[in-house]
């Protein structure tokens, strides 16, 4: 038998009755103002525990008893036998061990989602984007790049025609779901560089064309950029940079909502903060194309080495010339990439 004092409310008025509650075997008794109510314990519901809030007994006639005695609730629960779902949840929530475990699990789940879930969703979303959107993004990015970063090309027309012929040759090896275009620009701040825009436009800087005195190397670069386009790397990178946009796009299917973050696309392309995976994929695409044409991979590796050398020299320049960039500053791990390219027979 267990007795405690409690506040009883009959459920009809807000009047408080000071009462005593007694748990006697299978009976619950409440005494207040000279009255006594008695119930079977099975009919009485103890409100579920959350944190340390005070708990109450709910009686079948609508009456409620607010308890202030943890010993009594423990006794009542013990008699109820077995552990309910809410009881188990409550123990999880108050045990330091399970709280720490939940914290670790939560961090792992969120981290795993950012690491693997977001790229996967971004890929699906990027491939689902209507071509009209891609063309618009492409056009707007090119306009912004023209306005702020690059200048009109100064290459002689005959050189441009020669490169264009190479481009046509490489392009024939890629799927035709994009209206591929090649644009020549004077790189200025971008240096020797090549960018792949989402709608199928490749921007090649004069500096890169001049540096690559070898047609095969230039074709490899073009194949690399075409792979970026074919695999929607620009868009996927854009989507990945904003996990919330990806989730929104995947859940609602409303891909147009990415226009909100599309303004960052030119900056991202210029910085080319592509993931290493994208670069590896694009290199593989270039190597595959070279193989299919029975062309050697060595010139491509040599071009990369040359770019690396240029970068190293320029970076050592006085501070006012800081900000020197080229194809490689935006494409990390050159040594590893060269090794990969050369290793493939």
């Amino acid at each position, binding site marked *: 038998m267990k007795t405690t004092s409690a*506040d009883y*409310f*009959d*459920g*009809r*008025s*807000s*009047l*408080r009755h000071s009462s005593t509650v007694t748990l006697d075997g299978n009976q619950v008794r409440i005494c207040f*103002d000279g009255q006594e109510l008695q119930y079977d314990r099975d009919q009485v519901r103890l*409100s*579920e525990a*959350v*944190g*340390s*809030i*005070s708990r*109450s007994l709910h009686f079948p006639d*609508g*009456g*409620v008893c*607010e308890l202030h005695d943890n010993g009594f609730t423990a006794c009542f629960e013990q008699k109820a036998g077995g552990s309910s779902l809410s009881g188990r*949840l409550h123990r*999880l*929530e*108050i*045990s330091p061990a*399970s*709280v720490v475990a*939940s*914290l670790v*699990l*939560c961090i792992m*789940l969120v981290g795993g989602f950012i690491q693997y879930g977001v790229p996967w969703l971004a890929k699906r979303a990027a491939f689902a984007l209507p071509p009209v959107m891609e063309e618009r993004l492409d056009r707007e990015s090119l306009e912004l790049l023209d306005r702020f970063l690059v200048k009109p090309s100064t290459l002689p027309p005959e050189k441009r025609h020669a490169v264009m012929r190479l481009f046509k040759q490489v392009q024939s090896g890629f799927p035709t779901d994009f209206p591929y275009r090649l644009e020549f620009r004077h790189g200025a701040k971008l240096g020797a560089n090549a960018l792949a825009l989402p709608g199928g436009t490749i921007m090649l800087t004069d500096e890169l064309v001049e540096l690559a005195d070898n047609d095969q190397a230039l074709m490899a670069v073009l194949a690399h950029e075409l792979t970026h386009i074919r695999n929607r790397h620009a868009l996927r990178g854009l989507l990945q940079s904003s996990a919330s946009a990806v989730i929104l796009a995947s*859940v*609602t*299917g*409303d891909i147009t909502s990415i226009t909100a973050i599309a303004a960052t696309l030119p900056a991202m392309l210029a910085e080319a903060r592509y993931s290493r995976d994208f670069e590896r994929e694009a290199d593989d695409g270039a190597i595959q194309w070279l193989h299919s044409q029975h062309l050697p991979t060595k010139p491509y590796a040599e071009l990369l080495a040359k770019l690396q050398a240029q970068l190293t020299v320029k970076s050592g320049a006085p501070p006012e010339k800081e900000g020197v960039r080229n194809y490689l500053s935006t494409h990390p791990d050159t040594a590893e990439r060269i090794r990969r390219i050369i290793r493939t027979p």
Partner: protein
Amino acid sequence: MTTYRTITCPQCRFAKTVPADTIPAAVTSVTCPQCGTSFALEEPALPPAPPPSPSLPADHGHKEGRHTLNFHFSGAAREYFGIWIVNTVLKIVTFGIYSAWAKVRKRRWFYGNTWLDGHAFEYLADPKALFKGWLIGVGALMLYSAAGKIDPLLAIPAGLALFLAIPWVIVRSRMFNNRNSSHRNIRFGFRANYREAYTVYAWLPLLSLLSLGLLYPYTVYRQRKFHVEQSSFGSAPLRFDAKARDYYRVYAGASLWFVLILGIIGVAATLLLQGAPGLKNPRDLHLLLGPMLVLLYIGMLMLSVVFTVYLKVRLANLTWNGTCLGSGRFASSLRIQDLLWLYISNLVAIALTLGLMIPWAAVRLARYRCAHLVFIHEGPLDNFLADAQGKKVGAAGEELADLFDVGVEIGL
């Protein structure tokens, strides 16, 4: 103006509050509905209800038998962290199915830690009912997004349907939440007045749009009025006596702040442009672009935070101070500078810990809110009666409001 009388049975202490003018003058004795005792009706013991006044005296202490009952929040952030993190993980691993249970546990904790006159509130919703509502909500959300996918033209009727559903959803959600909140074992209630709901949530917003925002403060006033007046504690309706012109005053103040801060940003930008040294060459102007953008960003952030907090605080005070229940009324004394500090420090703490301080932020907000809300009442809260007509309410509206994010925030 209605005055209320509380008649208490001397035998069983059963009490009932009724409008004084419903008791015929000739009646001298009454019979208690509870125990059947007949007793003499005495002269009104209560002074008449206070005249409605929008501006409350600053000191709400004990005055002529009036009691100031303080709200109080007793929850500790550390305890809530455990509840929050366990429920978050469970929500993730069950793909949201668990959210109904998580919601009940969260609300039970917040309600159970909110005290008025020595008694905590209780949240009584059944998670299974909420889960059914959640399923309906998810179904509707999928249907809604699928409509746009199948045919962009379908998005128009779908959007229109959503717009027309909002008032209904809001009413159902309030009904569910009030019905499942109780204090002293008396449940709150919300009367379903769909006609008024469509007026304040569809018709008036449309008119306010057409009036280029001139009707917006009036719309907000009518929405708050609607929420208070449809609500009840047991059988006692809540009353609302704030005036529309007070809402116009709040929005005028907010606009003034808006213009003031915008001016400060403008002056700062001008000073920066003029004061920058050695800017003879216009080509160097781009060097200023960085600092200018940073300044603009910080300025805009400040602007939106101050604007939001100012409106939140003043609207909350205005609404609570206009709310009466029985012979008592609420008094809210939130301060803009306090809440500004709370919001900014919460934001910084949440950002620096990648969200792990969310429980702490929620608890400190609840503590501050409760510490600045009182109920001024004659005597103890003993004479409210339950609403005998109270029925169970489905949770579809509540979950639809959550999933479509059309819930009305009346917390603060």
